[in-house]
């Protein structure tokens, strides 16, 4: 075992003998995750949608507090001074600190994802991409952590300096509060913080979107890590005696960090479109039909009572085959969420320019041919299964895939099911969101999409919306693209 590996391995072992390090490095992130899960009423999809933030906080805390605390505590006790007297170069010790810290962060992240999946979260869409994103994020934060370690003269000073990075990153850096939700001035400031790029990169790995689509964020993170490393190297000290910093390194490091924010401003990346709550109550089907349709005749209400509350809404027909023209005519398509909005978006046809997303859609198209839920003999259930393919990426905010995937589903269904039947089936599904079987939602991994587990109520809501929206396109009452 080389000296670096030996030192890194010892640091890892010592970390696991330190109760506080385990509490801060592993327990706190898990408590945070569990609290998030409980606050969102045990639903798995918010965990998936916010894993970027959760993993970013884990990496940020471990790198900006854990690393400098351990390093400064050892330096205060003269450990590093003793290391300095060995024949090993400075870089060997720095490399082992970085490597061991990265492994600690990675293990904490893996445990966090594992626990989230145990809570029912979907499998990450792109595990290699997620690993790459987490690695780059860890590198960026470890660079910042090294700067804190070189600036702080004592462990209490680490806490103070760490908070100077941690809190602004949470509040206006796009970590605790999504960048889209921040006011414009804060978004401009956040462009200088790696937090927002970290959240976006990890989330991209979670949803399986093309990682290179977020190339600027990855480059910004890599440059942040590099800048932190350069500044830390210029401030490096083996003991608590302050040394005169190498000004060239300081200027270069700070310059690189500023350049990230400035380039983001110049390229118009700083301010993002303002978000609105994805979890807005989309309501039941009665919201999208004319009022008189809401009163079911007694015989149908009795039938619907056994199929759940959603089935009792606005219904005369006993099966999809009984749906009448007059039923469909009562759908108020104008009440549906806008196609350009956050909920159930559909992009205008032919606007897909991102090659990576096009390739992803092509992959899904190919995989659909062998996807068992797409071979379901019952046309009604088959249509529900297809609509789930559009609904889940929408719920997980897999932008821009979520906007273009509905067209693939629409085209497949039109090829598969006679138009006269399809319009009735769309209507039936829209009016009966709680009916049918939903195992297809758990089989989306075969299409390269996250497989949502746990309660499916919100997926069913999105299936309802897409059923309405695609019905509108069949009826030419919604943009056909």
């Amino acid at each position: 075992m080389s000296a670096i590996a030996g030192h890194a391995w010892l640091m890892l072992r010592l970390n696991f003998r330190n109760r506080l390090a385990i509490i801060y490095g592993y327990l706190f992130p898990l408590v945070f995750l569990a609290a998030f899960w409980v606050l969102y009423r045990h639903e798995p999809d918010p965990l998936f949608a916010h894993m970027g933030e959760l993993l970013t906080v884990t990496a940020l805390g471990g790198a900006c507090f854990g690393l400098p605390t351990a390093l400064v505590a050892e330096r205060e006790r003269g450990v590093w001074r003793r290391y300095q007297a060995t024949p090993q170069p400075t870089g060997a010790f720095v490399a082992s600190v970085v490597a061991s810290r990265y492994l600690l962060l990675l293990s904490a992240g893996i445990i966090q994802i594992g626990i989230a999946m145990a809570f029912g979260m979907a499998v990450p869409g792109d595990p290699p991409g997620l690993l790459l994103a987490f690695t780059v994020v860890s590198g960026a934060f470890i660079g910042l952590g090294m700067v804190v370690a070189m600036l702080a003269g004592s462990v209490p000073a680490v806490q103070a300096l760490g908070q100077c990075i941690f809190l602004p990153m949470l509040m206006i850096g796009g970590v605790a509060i999504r960048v889209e939700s921040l006011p414009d001035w804060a978004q401009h400031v956040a462009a200088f913080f790696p937090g927002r790029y970290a959240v976006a990169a990890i989330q991209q790995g979670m949803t399986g979107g093309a990682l290179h689509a977020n190339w600027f964020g990855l480059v910004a993170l890599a440059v942040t890590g590099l800048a932190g490393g350069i500044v830390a190297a210029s401030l490096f000290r083996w003991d608590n005696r302050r040394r005169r910093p190498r000004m060239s390194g300081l200027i270069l490091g700070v310059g690189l960090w500023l350049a990230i924010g400035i380039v983001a401003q110049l390229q118009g990346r700083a301010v993002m479109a303002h978000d609105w709550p994805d979890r807005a109550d989309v309501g039941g089907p009665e919201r999208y039909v004319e009022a008189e349709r809401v009163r079911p005749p007694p015989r149908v209400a009795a039938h619907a009572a056994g199929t759940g509350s959603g089935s009792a809404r606005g219904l005369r027909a006993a099966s999809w085959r009984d749906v009448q023209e007059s039923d469909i005519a009562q759908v108020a398509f104008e009440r549906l969420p806008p196609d350009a909005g956050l909920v159930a978006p559909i992009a205008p046809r032919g606007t897909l320019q991102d090659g990576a997303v096009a390739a992803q859609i092509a992959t899904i198209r190919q995989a659909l041919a062998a996807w068992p839920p797409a071979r379901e003999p019952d046309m009604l259930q088959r249509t529900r299964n297809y609509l789930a393919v559009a609904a889940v990426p929408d719920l997980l905010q897999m932008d821009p895939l979520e906007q273009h995937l509905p067209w693939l589903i629409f085209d497949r269904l039109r090829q598969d099911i006679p138009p006269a039947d399809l319009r009735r089936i769309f209507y039936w599904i829209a009016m009966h969101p709680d009916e049918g079987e939903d195992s297809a939602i758990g089989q989306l991994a075969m299409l390269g999409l996250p497989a949502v587990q746990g309660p499916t109520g919100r997926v069913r809501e999105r299936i309802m919306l897409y059923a309405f929206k695609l019905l509108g396109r069949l009826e030419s009452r919604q943009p056909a693209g």
Partner: protein
Amino acid sequence: MSDNGIATLRVSGLVKRYGDVAALRGLGFEIGSGEIVGLLGPNGAGKTTTIEAITGLITPDEGEIALCGVDIRRHPRKARARIGLALQATGLPDRVTPREALALFARLYHVRPDIPALLDRFGLVEKADAAFEALSGGQKQRLALALAFVNDPALILLDEPTAGLDPHIRQTLHGHIRAMREAGRSILLATHDMAEAEQLCDRVIVIDRGIVVASGAAAALTGQVRLSTRVQVQTDREAGLAELAGAELFEAQGCAIRFRTMQPHRAIEALVAALDARGVVIVSMQMGAATLEDVVLDLTTAGRGA
């Protein structure tokens, strides 16, 4: 000197400044093979700075340091590989065990020592798997010495290795240090403990304000010292004496009188006469030859009250 005539350590013209303060001002000395050399001097004389410069913990502004003929400043890593070091406070992570620490340092020095034998030699077998923070002061220092030995060094630098330890542990550590010499190592021992230096060192180097002010065997230095007899007198009341014929470094505080003299008979005669004239009675009197401590006090500015 080693067999081929090259000193194990040769330091010459060493200068180190911290701002306007010169910690070392042209320091120079040599250490031969299998020699224990004491580095003595008051606080701030430059002992720790000298050890740090030899180890490469600081970079001197001027001067040369050669270890077995290898220029330490030009080949610091090569030189460090041949130096063993035990500092005043042993810096190790709290939760590391002696066995792990020895294994780690073996890797850092790219050597494969017999770790169980080292643990046995330094009396650490029972504590081999105990956390460093759970070791006693003596055990920590024994571990520091074991670590200094892990790379089979040509030169061992010990900075106050027994400071703050009880006499029994100090004697044990002295045994380890002597064993190091017997194993052919050269040892530079920085210490404030003059008795320790007299017991252990073949030679001492006295430094003051960053330069060597005396060097040689402890016995030779005490013999050379100009003020060779030390006199301490206790009286029944304050005598009010300010000076005494034949005495130097005369000091009277309350009922205590201290001085040194080259003419003890004359000085004591004068003292008795002076006290008799004032009606002061001698309660006790102690006389002795100058010690190494006297030498250091005599040769250094701190001892002269500068």
